[in-house]
Protein backbone atom coordinates (compact mmCIF):
# COMPACT_ATOMS: atom_id res chain seq x y z
CA UNK A 1 0.00 0.00 0.00
CA UNK A 2 2.66 2.46 1.11
CA UNK A 3 4.56 2.07 -2.12
CA UNK A 4 1.59 2.56 -4.37
CA UNK A 5 1.12 6.05 -2.94
CA UNK A 6 4.50 7.13 -4.27
CA UNK A 7 3.30 7.37 -7.84
CA UNK A 8 3.56 10.66 -9.72
CA UNK A 9 -0.13 11.44 -9.24
CA UNK A 10 0.18 10.61 -5.55
CA UNK A 11 3.00 13.14 -5.14
CA UNK A 12 1.14 15.82 -7.11
CA UNK A 13 -1.90 15.22 -4.93
CA UNK A 14 0.05 15.46 -1.67
CA UNK A 15 1.81 18.67 -2.78
CA UNK A 16 -1.48 20.21 -3.85
CA UNK A 17 -3.30 19.39 -0.62
CA UNK A 18 -0.44 20.48 1.63
CA UNK A 19 0.03 23.72 -0.28
CA UNK A 20 -3.62 24.61 0.12
CA UNK A 21 -3.62 23.76 3.81
CA UNK A 22 -0.43 25.71 4.51
CA UNK A 23 -1.65 28.66 2.46
CA UNK A 24 -4.70 28.94 4.66
CA UNK A 25 -2.63 28.76 7.82
CA UNK A 26 -0.34 31.43 6.39
CA UNK A 27 -3.22 33.76 5.50
CA UNK A 28 -4.79 33.39 8.93
CA UNK A 29 -1.43 33.85 10.65
CA UNK A 30 -0.53 36.89 8.57
CA UNK A 31 -3.88 38.50 9.23
CA UNK A 32 -3.67 37.95 12.97
CA UNK A 33 -0.06 39.11 13.04
CA UNK A 34 -0.66 42.32 11.08
CA UNK A 35 -3.60 43.31 13.26
CA UNK A 36 -2.23 42.32 16.61
CA UNK A 37 1.35 43.50 16.06
CA UNK A 38 0.15 46.95 15.02
CA UNK A 39 -2.33 47.29 17.84
CA UNK A 40 -1.63 45.16 20.84
CA UNK A 41 1.10 47.40 22.24
CA UNK A 42 -1.47 50.13 22.85
CA UNK A 43 -3.87 47.83 24.62
CA UNK A 44 -3.53 48.32 28.34
CA UNK A 45 -5.77 48.68 31.35
CA UNK A 46 -6.39 52.37 30.72
CA UNK A 47 -7.40 51.67 27.12
CA UNK A 48 -9.94 49.11 28.27
CA UNK A 49 -11.40 51.24 31.08
CA UNK A 50 -11.44 54.84 29.79
CA UNK A 51 -13.87 56.69 27.57
CA UNK A 52 -12.68 57.77 24.14
CA UNK A 53 -11.24 61.30 23.99
CA UNK A 54 -10.94 63.45 20.88
CA UNK A 55 -13.07 61.14 18.66
CA UNK A 56 -11.09 58.15 19.83
CA UNK A 57 -7.60 59.47 19.02
CA UNK A 58 -6.97 59.31 22.73
CA UNK A 59 -8.51 57.67 25.77
CA UNK A 60 -9.98 54.17 25.62
CA UNK A 61 -12.89 52.08 24.45
CA UNK A 62 -14.77 51.18 27.66
CA UNK A 63 -18.24 52.41 26.56
CA UNK A 64 -17.74 50.71 23.22
CA UNK A 65 -17.00 47.37 24.84
CA UNK A 66 -20.11 47.79 27.00
CA UNK A 67 -22.30 48.69 24.00
CA UNK A 68 -20.93 45.71 22.08
CA UNK A 69 -21.71 43.32 24.93
CA UNK A 70 -25.23 44.74 25.25
CA UNK A 71 -25.90 44.56 21.51
CA UNK A 72 -24.69 40.94 21.37
CA UNK A 73 -26.75 40.17 24.47
CA UNK A 74 -29.95 41.53 22.92
CA UNK A 75 -29.13 39.67 19.71
CA UNK A 76 -28.67 36.35 21.54
CA UNK A 77 -31.76 36.79 23.72
CA UNK A 78 -33.79 37.12 20.54
CA UNK A 79 -31.90 34.57 18.46
CA UNK A 80 -31.62 31.60 20.80
CA UNK A 81 -35.28 31.00 21.79
CA UNK A 82 -36.60 31.83 18.32
CA UNK A 83 -33.83 29.92 16.58
CA UNK A 84 -34.04 26.79 18.72
CA UNK A 85 -37.84 26.71 18.35
CA UNK A 86 -37.62 27.03 14.58
CA UNK A 87 -34.87 24.41 14.44
CA UNK A 88 -37.00 21.97 16.48
CA UNK A 89 -39.88 22.51 14.07
CA UNK A 90 -37.67 22.00 11.02
CA UNK A 91 -35.86 18.95 12.41
CA UNK A 92 -39.06 17.17 13.37
CA UNK A 93 -39.74 14.04 11.39
CA UNK A 94 -43.26 15.11 10.54
CA UNK A 95 -43.57 18.90 10.68
CA UNK A 96 -40.09 19.23 9.12
CA UNK A 97 -41.41 17.80 5.87
CA UNK A 98 -44.44 20.10 5.63
CA UNK A 99 -44.93 22.83 3.05
CA UNK A 100 -44.48 25.42 5.79
CA UNK A 101 -41.09 23.94 6.66
CA UNK A 102 -39.99 24.08 3.03
CA UNK A 103 -41.12 27.71 2.95
CA UNK A 104 -39.16 28.52 6.12
CA UNK A 105 -36.01 26.90 4.75
CA UNK A 106 -36.26 28.85 1.51
CA UNK A 107 -36.83 32.07 3.44
CA UNK A 108 -33.81 31.38 5.65
CA UNK A 109 -31.60 30.61 2.66
CA UNK A 110 -32.65 33.86 1.00
CA UNK A 111 -32.07 35.83 4.22
CA UNK A 112 -28.68 34.18 4.66
CA UNK A 113 -27.55 35.60 1.33
CA UNK A 114 -28.74 39.17 1.86
CA UNK A 115 -25.90 41.72 2.25
CA UNK A 116 -25.67 43.17 5.74
CA UNK A 117 -26.18 46.74 4.57
CA UNK A 118 -29.69 45.72 3.48
CA UNK A 119 -30.35 44.40 7.00
CA UNK A 120 -29.15 47.76 8.26
CA UNK A 121 -31.61 49.65 6.08
CA UNK A 122 -34.40 47.25 7.00
CA UNK A 123 -33.58 47.54 10.71
CA UNK A 124 -33.61 51.31 10.44
CA UNK A 125 -36.97 51.38 8.65
CA UNK A 126 -38.60 48.69 10.81
CA UNK A 127 -37.15 48.81 14.33
CA UNK A 128 -35.96 52.43 14.51
CA UNK A 129 -38.80 54.15 12.67
CA UNK A 130 -41.86 51.88 12.35
CA UNK A 131 -41.60 50.45 15.87
CA UNK A 132 -40.31 53.74 17.24
CA UNK A 133 -37.21 52.34 18.94
CA UNK A 134 -34.96 54.98 17.40
CA UNK A 135 -31.22 54.57 17.19
CA UNK A 136 -30.74 52.21 20.09
CA UNK A 137 -28.94 49.13 21.32
CA UNK A 138 -32.31 47.39 21.15
CA UNK A 139 -32.74 48.20 17.45
CA UNK A 140 -29.18 47.16 16.71
CA UNK A 141 -29.40 43.88 18.63
CA UNK A 142 -32.69 42.92 16.98
CA UNK A 143 -31.37 43.78 13.53
CA UNK A 144 -28.35 41.59 14.21
CA UNK A 145 -30.71 38.83 15.34
CA UNK A 146 -32.43 38.93 11.94
CA UNK A 147 -29.03 38.54 10.35
CA UNK A 148 -27.75 35.80 12.63
CA UNK A 149 -30.94 33.72 12.68
CA UNK A 150 -30.59 32.13 9.22
CA UNK A 151 -27.19 30.63 9.94
CA UNK A 152 -28.07 29.77 13.55
CA UNK A 153 -31.27 27.94 12.60
CA UNK A 154 -29.69 25.86 9.85
CA UNK A 155 -26.75 24.74 12.03
CA UNK A 156 -29.06 24.08 15.01
CA UNK A 157 -31.46 22.14 12.80
CA UNK A 158 -28.76 19.76 11.67
CA UNK A 159 -27.49 19.41 15.25
CA UNK A 160 -30.95 18.32 16.40
CA UNK A 161 -31.46 16.12 13.36
CA UNK A 162 -28.16 14.37 14.02
CA UNK A 163 -29.38 13.08 17.37
CA UNK A 164 -29.92 9.45 16.54
CA UNK A 165 -33.42 8.44 15.56
CA UNK A 166 -33.08 5.65 18.17
CA UNK A 167 -33.58 8.08 21.01
CA UNK A 168 -36.63 9.55 19.43
CA UNK A 169 -38.16 6.11 18.91
CA UNK A 170 -37.22 5.03 22.44
CA UNK A 171 -39.01 8.06 23.84
CA UNK A 172 -42.06 7.39 21.68
CA UNK A 173 -42.15 3.72 22.70
CA UNK A 174 -42.18 4.85 26.34
CA UNK A 175 -45.12 7.09 25.48
CA UNK A 176 -43.28 10.26 26.50
CA UNK A 177 -44.87 13.54 25.49
CA UNK A 178 -43.48 15.68 22.69
CA UNK A 179 -42.36 18.22 25.28
CA UNK A 180 -40.38 15.73 27.38
CA UNK A 181 -38.96 14.05 24.28
CA UNK A 182 -37.74 17.34 22.85
CA UNK A 183 -36.46 19.10 25.93
CA UNK A 184 -35.27 16.20 28.10
CA UNK A 185 -34.15 13.61 25.56
CA UNK A 186 -33.24 15.23 22.25
CA UNK A 187 -31.95 18.73 23.11
CA UNK A 188 -29.42 17.63 25.78
CA UNK A 189 -27.76 15.48 23.15
CA UNK A 190 -27.76 18.34 20.66
CA UNK A 191 -26.04 20.84 22.97
CA UNK A 192 -22.55 20.58 21.43
CA UNK A 193 -24.04 21.31 18.00
CA UNK A 194 -26.16 24.14 19.38
CA UNK A 195 -23.03 25.67 20.94
CA UNK A 196 -21.34 25.55 17.54
CA UNK A 197 -24.33 27.34 16.05
CA UNK A 198 -24.12 29.94 18.81
CA UNK A 199 -20.40 30.56 18.24
CA UNK A 200 -20.97 31.08 14.53
CA UNK A 201 -23.77 33.49 15.35
CA UNK A 202 -21.73 35.50 17.85
CA UNK A 203 -18.80 35.69 15.46
CA UNK A 204 -21.03 37.02 12.72
CA UNK A 205 -22.64 39.53 15.08
CA UNK A 206 -19.32 40.77 16.46
CA UNK A 207 -17.98 41.33 12.97
CA UNK A 208 -20.94 43.39 11.85
CA UNK A 209 -20.63 47.06 10.94
CA UNK A 210 -23.05 47.92 8.17
CA UNK A 211 -26.14 46.59 9.91
CA UNK A 212 -25.37 48.58 13.05
CA UNK A 213 -24.48 52.04 11.78
CA UNK A 214 -28.13 52.73 10.88
CA UNK A 215 -29.64 50.98 13.86
CA UNK A 216 -27.61 51.22 17.06
CA UNK A 217 -25.88 54.38 15.96
CA UNK A 218 -22.34 55.53 16.68
CA UNK A 219 -22.24 57.77 19.72
CA UNK A 220 -19.31 56.88 21.94
CA UNK A 221 -20.72 57.66 25.38
CA UNK A 222 -21.68 55.06 27.96
CA UNK A 223 -25.17 53.69 27.22
CA UNK A 224 -27.50 54.06 30.18
CA UNK A 225 -30.22 51.73 28.95
CA UNK A 226 -31.06 49.56 25.97
CA UNK A 227 -32.91 52.52 24.51
CA UNK A 228 -29.68 54.49 24.24
CA UNK A 229 -27.63 54.55 21.12
CA UNK A 230 -24.25 52.84 21.37
CA UNK A 231 -21.23 52.14 19.19
CA UNK A 232 -19.96 48.60 18.68
CA UNK A 233 -16.28 47.63 18.33
CA UNK A 234 -16.56 47.05 14.59
CA UNK A 235 -18.23 50.41 14.04
CA UNK A 236 -15.51 52.05 16.13
CA UNK A 237 -12.79 50.50 13.99
CA UNK A 238 -14.58 51.59 10.84
CA UNK A 239 -14.98 55.14 12.11
CA UNK A 240 -11.41 55.47 13.35
CA UNK A 241 -9.97 54.10 10.14
CA UNK A 242 -12.09 56.11 7.74
CA UNK A 243 -13.31 59.31 9.41
CA UNK A 244 -10.73 60.20 12.01
CA UNK A 245 -7.39 61.42 10.73
CA UNK A 246 -4.69 59.98 12.93
CA UNK A 247 -7.04 57.32 14.24
CA UNK A 248 -5.29 54.39 12.57
CA UNK A 249 -3.26 53.31 15.58
CA UNK A 250 -6.33 53.23 17.78
CA UNK A 251 -8.22 51.36 15.06
CA UNK A 252 -5.57 48.65 15.18
CA UNK A 253 -5.69 48.58 18.96
CA UNK A 254 -9.48 48.16 18.90
CA UNK A 255 -9.16 45.49 16.21
CA UNK A 256 -6.74 43.58 18.45
CA UNK A 257 -9.29 43.63 21.24
CA UNK A 258 -11.97 42.37 18.85
CA UNK A 259 -9.79 39.58 17.49
CA UNK A 260 -8.72 38.48 20.96
CA UNK A 261 -12.35 38.50 22.07
CA UNK A 262 -13.31 36.29 19.12
CA UNK A 263 -10.48 33.89 19.84
CA UNK A 264 -11.48 33.72 23.50
CA UNK A 265 -15.10 32.91 22.63
CA UNK A 266 -13.95 30.17 20.28
CA UNK A 267 -11.60 28.66 22.83
CA UNK A 268 -14.21 28.74 25.59
CA UNK A 269 -16.93 27.06 23.50
CA UNK A 270 -14.37 24.55 22.28
CA UNK A 271 -13.55 23.50 25.82
CA UNK A 272 -17.16 23.48 26.97
CA UNK A 273 -18.06 21.26 24.02
CA UNK A 274 -15.14 18.91 24.71
CA UNK A 275 -16.14 18.66 28.34
CA UNK A 276 -19.74 17.86 27.41
CA UNK A 277 -18.66 15.26 24.88
CA UNK A 278 -16.35 13.59 27.37
CA UNK A 279 -19.17 13.32 29.90
CA UNK A 280 -21.34 11.39 27.49
Amino acid sequence: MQQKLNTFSGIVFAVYVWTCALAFCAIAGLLLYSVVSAGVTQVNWAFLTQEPIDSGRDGGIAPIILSTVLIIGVCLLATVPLGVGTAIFLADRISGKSKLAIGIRTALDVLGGVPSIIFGLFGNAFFCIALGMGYSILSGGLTLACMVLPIFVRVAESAIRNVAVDHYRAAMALALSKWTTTFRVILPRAIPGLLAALTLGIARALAETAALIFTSGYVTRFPESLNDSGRSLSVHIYDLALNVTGGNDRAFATASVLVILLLLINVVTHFVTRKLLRQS
Partner: protein
Amino acid sequence: MIETKQLSVAYAGKSVIRDVSLKVDQGEILAIVGPSGCGKSSFLAAINRLTDLVPGASITGQVLVDCCDIRSTTRTPVELRKCAGMIFQKPNPFEMSIRKNIQLPLREHGVRSKSELDRITEEVLQKVGLWSEVQDRLNQSATQLSGGQQQRLCIARAMALRPQIMLMDEPCSALDPISSSTVEALIESMRGEFTVVIVTHNLAQARRISDRTAVFWLVDGVGQLIAEGETKQVFENPQSEVAAAYFSGLKG
Protein backbone atom coordinates in the same frame (compact mmCIF):
# COMPACT_ATOMS: atom_id res chain seq x y z
CA MET B 1 -52.39 -11.49 24.53
CA ILE B 2 -51.82 -10.27 21.03
CA GLU B 3 -53.78 -11.21 17.97
CA THR B 4 -53.46 -9.88 14.44
CA LYS B 5 -56.00 -10.55 11.75
CA GLN B 6 -54.99 -10.04 8.14
CA LEU B 7 -52.61 -7.33 9.21
CA SER B 8 -50.99 -5.40 6.37
CA VAL B 9 -48.61 -2.48 6.65
CA ALA B 10 -47.71 -0.12 3.83
CA TYR B 11 -45.38 2.87 3.72
CA ALA B 12 -46.43 5.54 1.22
CA GLY B 13 -48.52 3.00 -0.67
CA LYS B 14 -45.77 0.35 -0.83
CA SER B 15 -46.71 -2.82 1.04
CA VAL B 16 -44.14 -4.20 3.45
CA ILE B 17 -46.22 -6.94 5.05
CA ARG B 18 -49.45 -8.49 3.86
CA ASP B 19 -52.17 -10.51 5.56
CA VAL B 20 -50.34 -11.59 8.68
CA SER B 21 -52.61 -13.44 11.09
CA LEU B 22 -50.86 -14.45 14.28
CA LYS B 23 -51.81 -15.11 17.86
CA VAL B 24 -49.57 -14.85 20.89
CA ASP B 25 -50.94 -16.09 24.20
CA GLN B 26 -50.46 -14.40 27.54
CA GLY B 27 -47.04 -15.15 29.05
CA GLU B 28 -45.70 -16.82 25.94
CA ILE B 29 -42.47 -16.08 24.02
CA LEU B 30 -42.91 -15.83 20.28
CA ALA B 31 -39.82 -15.58 18.07
CA ILE B 32 -40.10 -14.02 14.64
CA VAL B 33 -37.35 -15.06 12.24
CA GLY B 34 -36.71 -14.42 8.58
CA PRO B 35 -34.27 -12.68 6.25
CA SER B 36 -33.65 -8.92 6.32
CA GLY B 37 -36.32 -6.68 4.87
CA CYS B 38 -39.22 -9.10 5.20
CA GLY B 39 -41.22 -6.85 7.50
CA LYS B 40 -40.47 -8.31 10.93
CA SER B 41 -39.75 -4.93 12.49
CA SER B 42 -42.77 -3.35 10.80
CA PHE B 43 -44.92 -6.08 12.29
CA LEU B 44 -43.63 -5.20 15.77
CA ALA B 45 -44.08 -1.47 15.18
CA ALA B 46 -47.67 -2.03 14.08
CA ILE B 47 -48.48 -3.64 17.43
CA ASN B 48 -47.66 -0.58 19.55
CA ARG B 49 -48.52 1.86 16.75
CA LEU B 50 -44.99 3.12 16.38
CA THR B 51 -45.89 3.10 12.68
CA ASP B 52 -47.84 6.30 13.42
CA LEU B 53 -44.50 8.10 13.49
CA VAL B 54 -43.73 7.30 9.87
CA PRO B 55 -45.44 9.79 7.56
CA GLY B 56 -47.52 7.92 5.01
CA ALA B 57 -47.69 4.63 6.91
CA SER B 58 -50.99 2.82 6.78
CA ILE B 59 -52.25 -0.26 8.60
CA THR B 60 -55.09 -2.44 7.40
CA GLY B 61 -56.57 -5.46 9.11
CA GLN B 62 -56.84 -5.81 12.82
CA VAL B 63 -54.47 -5.81 15.75
CA LEU B 64 -55.95 -6.85 19.07
CA VAL B 65 -53.92 -6.29 22.18
CA ASP B 66 -55.59 -7.83 25.19
CA CYS B 67 -58.73 -8.17 23.13
CA CYS B 68 -59.02 -4.50 22.37
CA ASP B 69 -58.49 -3.12 18.88
CA ILE B 70 -55.40 -0.88 18.91
CA ARG B 71 -57.26 1.71 16.90
CA SER B 72 -60.28 1.73 19.14
CA THR B 73 -61.01 5.16 20.49
CA THR B 74 -61.19 3.90 24.06
CA ARG B 75 -57.45 3.35 24.19
CA THR B 76 -54.98 6.07 23.28
CA PRO B 77 -51.54 5.30 21.83
CA VAL B 78 -50.11 6.39 25.18
CA GLU B 79 -51.98 3.67 27.06
CA LEU B 80 -51.18 1.15 24.35
CA ARG B 81 -47.45 1.91 24.51
CA LYS B 82 -47.45 1.70 28.29
CA CYS B 83 -49.04 -1.73 27.98
CA ALA B 84 -46.65 -2.86 25.22
CA GLY B 85 -43.01 -1.94 25.93
CA MET B 86 -40.44 -1.98 23.17
CA ILE B 87 -36.74 -2.81 23.11
CA PHE B 88 -34.60 -1.93 20.12
CA GLN B 89 -31.54 -3.43 18.50
CA LYS B 90 -29.17 -0.71 19.65
CA PRO B 91 -29.38 0.03 23.37
CA ASN B 92 -30.73 3.57 23.67
CA PRO B 93 -30.51 4.85 27.24
CA PHE B 94 -31.15 8.59 27.49
CA GLU B 95 -28.29 10.95 28.15
CA MET B 96 -28.97 11.24 31.87
CA SER B 97 -28.30 9.29 35.04
CA ILE B 98 -29.24 5.63 35.45
CA ARG B 99 -31.85 6.63 38.01
CA LYS B 100 -33.40 9.31 35.79
CA ASN B 101 -33.57 6.94 32.84
CA ILE B 102 -36.04 4.85 34.80
CA GLN B 103 -37.78 7.65 36.66
CA LEU B 104 -38.34 10.10 33.80
CA PRO B 105 -40.99 7.92 32.10
CA LEU B 106 -42.50 7.04 35.48
CA ARG B 107 -42.87 10.71 36.42
CA GLU B 108 -44.29 11.43 32.99
CA HIS B 109 -46.97 8.84 33.64
CA GLY B 110 -47.95 10.14 37.02
CA VAL B 111 -45.78 8.47 39.66
CA ARG B 112 -44.79 11.38 41.92
CA SER B 113 -43.75 10.13 45.34
CA LYS B 114 -40.02 9.82 45.79
CA SER B 115 -40.23 6.62 47.82
CA GLU B 116 -42.47 4.98 45.22
CA LEU B 117 -40.09 6.04 42.42
CA ASP B 118 -37.10 4.61 44.27
CA ARG B 119 -38.94 1.43 45.12
CA ILE B 120 -39.85 0.77 41.47
CA THR B 121 -36.33 1.66 40.37
CA GLU B 122 -34.84 -0.93 42.69
CA GLU B 123 -37.46 -3.50 41.79
CA VAL B 124 -36.92 -3.33 38.02
CA LEU B 125 -33.13 -3.12 38.31
CA GLN B 126 -33.26 -6.26 40.49
CA LYS B 127 -35.41 -7.94 37.88
CA VAL B 128 -32.92 -7.35 35.08
CA GLY B 129 -30.00 -8.27 37.33
CA LEU B 130 -28.42 -4.82 37.27
CA TRP B 131 -29.06 -3.74 40.84
CA SER B 132 -25.90 -5.22 42.36
CA GLU B 133 -23.83 -3.77 39.52
CA VAL B 134 -25.15 -0.21 39.66
CA GLN B 135 -26.72 0.40 43.09
CA ASP B 136 -23.76 2.55 44.17
CA ARG B 137 -23.74 4.67 41.04
CA LEU B 138 -27.35 5.36 40.20
CA ASN B 139 -26.49 9.00 39.64
CA GLN B 140 -23.85 8.26 37.03
CA SER B 141 -24.56 8.74 33.36
CA ALA B 142 -26.25 5.72 31.83
CA THR B 143 -24.13 6.09 28.71
CA GLN B 144 -21.08 4.99 30.70
CA LEU B 145 -22.47 1.49 31.17
CA SER B 146 -21.36 -1.35 28.89
CA GLY B 147 -23.53 -2.28 25.93
CA GLY B 148 -25.11 -5.25 27.68
CA GLN B 149 -25.78 -3.23 30.82
CA GLN B 150 -27.33 -0.47 28.71
CA GLN B 151 -29.64 -2.94 27.06
CA ARG B 152 -30.70 -4.38 30.43
CA LEU B 153 -31.29 -0.83 31.67
CA CYS B 154 -33.56 -0.22 28.67
CA ILE B 155 -35.47 -3.39 29.51
CA ALA B 156 -35.77 -2.24 33.14
CA ARG B 157 -36.95 1.18 31.95
CA ALA B 158 -39.68 -0.44 29.87
CA MET B 159 -40.63 -2.80 32.73
CA ALA B 160 -41.06 0.12 35.11
CA LEU B 161 -44.25 1.12 33.29
CA ARG B 162 -45.70 -2.32 34.12
CA PRO B 163 -46.39 -3.48 30.59
CA GLN B 164 -47.94 -6.84 29.88
CA ILE B 165 -46.21 -7.13 26.54
CA MET B 166 -42.56 -6.78 25.52
CA LEU B 167 -41.79 -6.19 21.88
CA MET B 168 -38.10 -6.85 21.22
CA ASP B 169 -36.46 -5.96 17.93
CA GLU B 170 -33.21 -7.97 17.77
CA PRO B 171 -32.30 -7.05 21.35
CA CYS B 172 -29.04 -9.04 21.35
CA SER B 173 -27.61 -8.48 17.91
CA ALA B 174 -25.60 -5.36 18.80
CA LEU B 175 -24.09 -6.99 21.91
CA ASP B 176 -20.96 -9.05 22.51
CA PRO B 177 -21.52 -12.80 23.08
CA ILE B 178 -21.33 -12.66 26.89
CA SER B 179 -23.72 -9.70 27.25
CA SER B 180 -25.91 -11.35 24.65
CA SER B 181 -26.28 -14.51 26.72
CA THR B 182 -27.06 -12.46 29.85
CA VAL B 183 -29.83 -10.61 28.04
CA GLU B 184 -31.05 -13.87 26.54
CA ALA B 185 -31.33 -15.42 30.00
CA LEU B 186 -33.24 -12.32 31.11
CA ILE B 187 -35.71 -12.73 28.26
CA GLU B 188 -36.22 -16.38 29.17
CA SER B 189 -36.96 -15.33 32.73
CA MET B 190 -39.80 -13.13 31.46
CA ARG B 191 -41.80 -16.18 30.39
CA GLY B 192 -45.10 -16.30 32.21
CA GLU B 193 -44.96 -12.72 33.40
CA PHE B 194 -44.78 -10.91 30.05
CA THR B 195 -46.01 -11.74 26.61
CA VAL B 196 -42.81 -11.48 24.57
CA VAL B 197 -42.49 -11.05 20.83
CA ILE B 198 -38.84 -11.15 19.83
CA VAL B 199 -37.51 -10.55 16.35
CA THR B 200 -34.17 -12.26 15.88
CA HIS B 201 -31.73 -13.16 13.11
CA ASN B 202 -30.19 -15.76 15.34
CA LEU B 203 -32.02 -19.02 14.61
CA ALA B 204 -30.26 -20.83 17.45
CA GLN B 205 -31.47 -18.15 19.84
CA ALA B 206 -35.04 -18.45 18.58
CA ARG B 207 -34.80 -22.19 19.14
CA ARG B 208 -33.41 -21.79 22.64
CA ILE B 209 -35.78 -19.26 24.11
CA SER B 210 -39.10 -19.26 22.29
CA ASP B 211 -42.27 -21.26 22.85
CA ARG B 212 -43.44 -20.63 19.36
CA THR B 213 -41.80 -19.40 16.19
CA ALA B 214 -43.12 -17.49 13.20
CA VAL B 215 -41.19 -17.38 9.94
CA PHE B 216 -41.55 -14.31 7.75
CA TRP B 217 -40.49 -14.39 4.12
CA LEU B 218 -40.50 -12.06 1.13
CA VAL B 219 -43.13 -13.26 -1.31
CA ASP B 220 -43.38 -11.12 -4.47
CA GLY B 221 -41.50 -8.36 -2.67
CA VAL B 222 -43.90 -8.26 0.28
CA GLY B 223 -43.31 -9.75 3.72
CA GLN B 224 -45.61 -12.63 4.57
CA LEU B 225 -45.97 -15.24 7.25
CA ILE B 226 -44.93 -18.59 5.74
CA ALA B 227 -44.72 -20.84 8.79
CA GLU B 228 -45.83 -20.67 12.37
CA GLY B 229 -46.22 -23.04 15.29
CA GLU B 230 -44.48 -24.57 18.27
CA THR B 231 -40.79 -23.85 18.00
CA LYS B 232 -39.74 -27.51 18.11
CA GLN B 233 -42.20 -28.42 15.37
CA VAL B 234 -41.39 -25.46 13.17
CA PHE B 235 -37.68 -26.25 13.22
CA GLU B 236 -37.86 -30.04 13.11
CA ASN B 237 -40.73 -30.46 10.67
CA PRO B 238 -40.77 -27.27 8.62
CA GLN B 239 -44.14 -26.74 6.98
CA SER B 240 -42.67 -25.23 3.86
CA GLU B 241 -39.68 -25.95 1.65
CA VAL B 242 -38.56 -22.35 1.85
CA ALA B 243 -38.51 -22.48 5.66
CA ALA B 244 -36.60 -25.78 5.56
CA ALA B 245 -34.01 -24.27 3.20
CA TYR B 246 -33.75 -21.20 5.42
CA PHE B 247 -33.13 -23.24 8.57
CA SER B 248 -30.48 -25.34 6.86
CA GLY B 249 -28.68 -22.23 5.67
CA LEU B 250 -29.42 -22.73 1.99
CA LYS B 251 -31.61 -19.64 1.72
CA GLY B 252 -32.05 -16.23 3.33
